[in-house]
């Protein structure tokens, strides 16, 4: 019975328009904000106001093409490449350690002629597809706990590799993995231990290096520390936005006060220019996007598709939460980009690839045994 249902041709469903609309809105909004925040820095460093915009526009165009392809190819097609992709992500991360180019003191990029590529962004997608494939292909597991542990062990190399030069992204990857495994695992209790272990590890990690503890002090009182400058400037930007903001393009904080405003701190400039109303609208669009992931997952045909959706959901949710929390000084400062809006070519290409995957799942339609 089950076999028959599975082999039936998929009902002709249309692409999820809500998700597509949310993606397109965010992509367009992202480009506008990139221009607004980067014009000053572009003019200053490259004598070209549109320097960053041009690069981002190119990456976004490429990303939209990738999204279209991903949404057209059945998501199961990628399953056979899941392991390969994961291996490639590991190899690329190793390559970065040896051949990476350094920007702003971090070795995160691989230069490919005029283009540069950030393997850690690719790693997020690879981990989502790999875990979805891994978990959904093992049926009737005997020892659930062993499987749980083996999943974590398999993910560990990429987390360590990425974490060696980009802790924030490593945390995101680990977070995505934890959420996906949590959703896939029948019980909840072991995750309490995972959470506790995480907290203990965090505490040990923080106390190992004094500068990490300093971050906590800065977080509590950014005005007292010189290194609290960026955080404080972000707060100035957010606070001076008020209810309706200064108007698009009118930010003063982006003029060198918030360093590299087009990067991690871009949301603070969104707040300054568009106010509370604008900021909440942007978060609202993300909320719609996250809801669509949930709805599409619920309506997906099988556990693989379901886990892809939950992985993408985890990815976007974690990045939004951490970024907004950092920008509003709700948690200590750590470099996390704001999806679709922060400047970064690799990031937007793979984000759009993930969107393509989910859009394809949405087209596949309802699972009959749900």
């Amino acid at each position, binding site marked *: 019975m089950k076999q028959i249902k599975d082999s039936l041709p998929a009902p002709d469903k249309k692409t999820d328009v809500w998700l597509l609309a949310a993606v397109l809105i965010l992509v367009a909004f992202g480009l506008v904000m990139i221009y607004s925040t980067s014009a000053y820095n572009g003019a200053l460093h490259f004598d070209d106001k549109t320097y960053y915009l041009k690069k981002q526009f190119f990456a976004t165009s490429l990303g939209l093409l990738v999204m279209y392809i991903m949404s057209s190819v059945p998501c199961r097609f990628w399953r056979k490449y899941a392991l390969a992709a994961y291996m490639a992500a590991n190899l690329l991360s190793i390559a970065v350690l040896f051949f990476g180019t350094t920007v702003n003191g971090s070795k995160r990029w691989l230069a490919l002629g005029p283009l540069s590529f950030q393997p850690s962004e690719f790693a997020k997608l690879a981990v989502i597809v790999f875990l979805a494939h891994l978990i*959904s*292909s093992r049926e009737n597991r005997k020892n659930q706990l062993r499987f749980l542990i083996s999943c974590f062990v398999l993910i560990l190399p990429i987390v360590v590799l990425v974490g060696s030069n980009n802790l924030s992204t490593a945390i995101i990857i680990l977070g995505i993995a934890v959420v996906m495994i949590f*959703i896939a695992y029948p019980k909840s209790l072991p995750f309490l231990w995972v959470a506790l272990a995480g907290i203990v590890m965090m505490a040990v990690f923080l106390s190992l290096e004094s500068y990490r503890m300093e971050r906590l002090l800065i977080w509590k009182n950014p005005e007292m520390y010189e290194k609290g400058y960026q955080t404080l400037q972000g707060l*100035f930007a957010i606070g001076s936005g008020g*209810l309706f903001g200064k108007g698009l393009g009118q930010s*003063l904080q982006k*003029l060198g*006060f918030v360093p590299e405003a087009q990067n991690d701190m871009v949301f603070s400039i969104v707040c300054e220019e568009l106010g509370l109303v604008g900021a909440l609208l942007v978060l609202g669009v993300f909320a719609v996007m996250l809801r669509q992931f949930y709805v599409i997952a619920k309506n997906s045909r099988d556990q693989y598709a379901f886990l892809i959706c939950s992985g993408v959901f985890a990815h976007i949710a974690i990045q939004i939460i951490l970024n907004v929390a950092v920008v509003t000084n709700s948690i200590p400062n750590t470099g996390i980009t704001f999806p679709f809006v922060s400047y970064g070519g690799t990031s937007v290409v793979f984000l759009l690839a993930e969107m393509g995957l989910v859009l394809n799942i949405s087209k596949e339609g309802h699972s009959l045994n749900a």
Partner: protein
Amino acid sequence: MQRKKAYNRKKFFFVAVAVALILTALAARLVYLMVFCSEYYGVKAKDLHQRERSIKAARGEITDRNGTVLATNKTVCTVSVIHSQIKAPDEVTKQLSQILEMDPAEVRKKVEKVSSMEIIKKNIDKATGDEIRQLSLDGVKVDEDFKRYYPYGELASKVIGFTGADNQGIIGLEVKYDDVLQGSDGKILTLTDARGIEIEDAAEERVEAVAGKTLRLSIDLNIQQFIQQEAYRTMEEKGAGYVSILVMNPQNGEILGMSNVPEFDLNDPFTLTAAEGLSDDEKQDALNQMWRNQCINDTYEPGSTFKIITMAAGLSEGVVTPEDRFYCPGYKIVEDRRIRCHQTRGHGAESFVEGAMNSCNPVFIEVGLRLGADRYYKYFKQFGLLEKTGIDLPGEAGTIMHKKENIGEVELATIAFGQSFQITPIQLATTVSSIINGGNRVVPHFAVSARDSQGKVSAFSFVPKEIGISKEVSNTVKGILRQVVAEGTGKNAKVEGFSIGGKTATSQTLPRSANKYIASFLGFAPAEDPRVLVLVIINDPQGIYYGGTIAAPVANRIFENILPYLNIGRESAG
């Protein structure tokens, strides 16, 4: 292939709810920051973005009584470099050293110095500043400022005074009327980026500067120029130390001219003629000496011109009448002293009027002694000689006088002909003015009115005080003093066809052993109703030092020129 499990959905739902809760909390955090902390952060951010640039208020001009500008402002520029903005240091060094005619090595040092801003040169004229600005070199800034400028250079330098680097008055009227002349600075609040560069087209808040008021003086440029020229001529002819000439209106105290030569260049007040080998303190002393206004800051023994006061006191008290007869043997014995008359062989028998015409010491000693110390001192005080005149210039010196209880016969005798005490020239001119104008002790002054930038004029008022002397006495004094000029010692001041009153004086300065003299003459016209008073003081002349011989002719030339100029009629017409 795995199918979805029910718990998959349940757990995803759990995650979704958790995410929704966290996002809600973050939204609440945003509301807190952007609504409740908005003002706090907004103000802090504004402080960060705004740079205050002050707009200097133009200092008020100073004009003579007819509106001719004596002190004004010139736009000057300051050229500075901002290290972080310089793109072509070689070009900047080359151009600046060339245009400013400076040593390229010195300019290079400043260009290469790592500082936020380095001043290359100050006080360059506007044309040069504009030339540099037109090059639009990155990192080179040209700021405009006002610098005080005195079109007539030395004219009335010790009266007008000058200003310092911050445009604040340092001496003279510039400091006395600093409040009037100094406007209030405005400011521009501009927005800047993090490097401090102003944002173009950004709205700026402005508080406009209010220019200082224009101060109109009682000085008449033509009279001032004439007396200054006469003072220099006299100083050179007589080899004098300095010469002071004062022209004032005895009716209201307005000073028409005051010159103390040598004057100094107001546009270059810190340059001494002989400054080599002086320590800083000595240099400062020399500057203070150069800036001294001898009419006001210095006291001297007035000598015979003070006989006017003795005359007025004696006549008021009735101890002497013009017809009283005296005898001068060439000296007068007072107690154990033999006080000589300047005419050693004696004036013989003479009336009081003749005594005045001869400037006979024994006659005035006699009048002084008739008054007695108490009464003399009473008049001294009553005429205002113990107080300062209240002239509107800083640093007026006080009178140096015996204590009343220390005035014996000898002291009284010497006071009577203007010795053994010291007053300022302005004190003498003021006291004589109040005697000859019928008893109003006027306040000598320069300031007439102040006009603000809207054209509103406010006049200064200087209220005179009664000194309690009758019209008759005043008229008698004027009559006697007219005789002095007509036929007496002051005859060298006589101008044909004009009625002039006056008195000469020759006083020996302290220490007497130095044999230095001050020759002076005080005159006024018309004698019956004085409208102008002239005081000429020649300090330490070489050769002949008699006031009647060397000071009176100066007054003569002054009267000759300024009486027609002031439309003071000839006797026949009046």
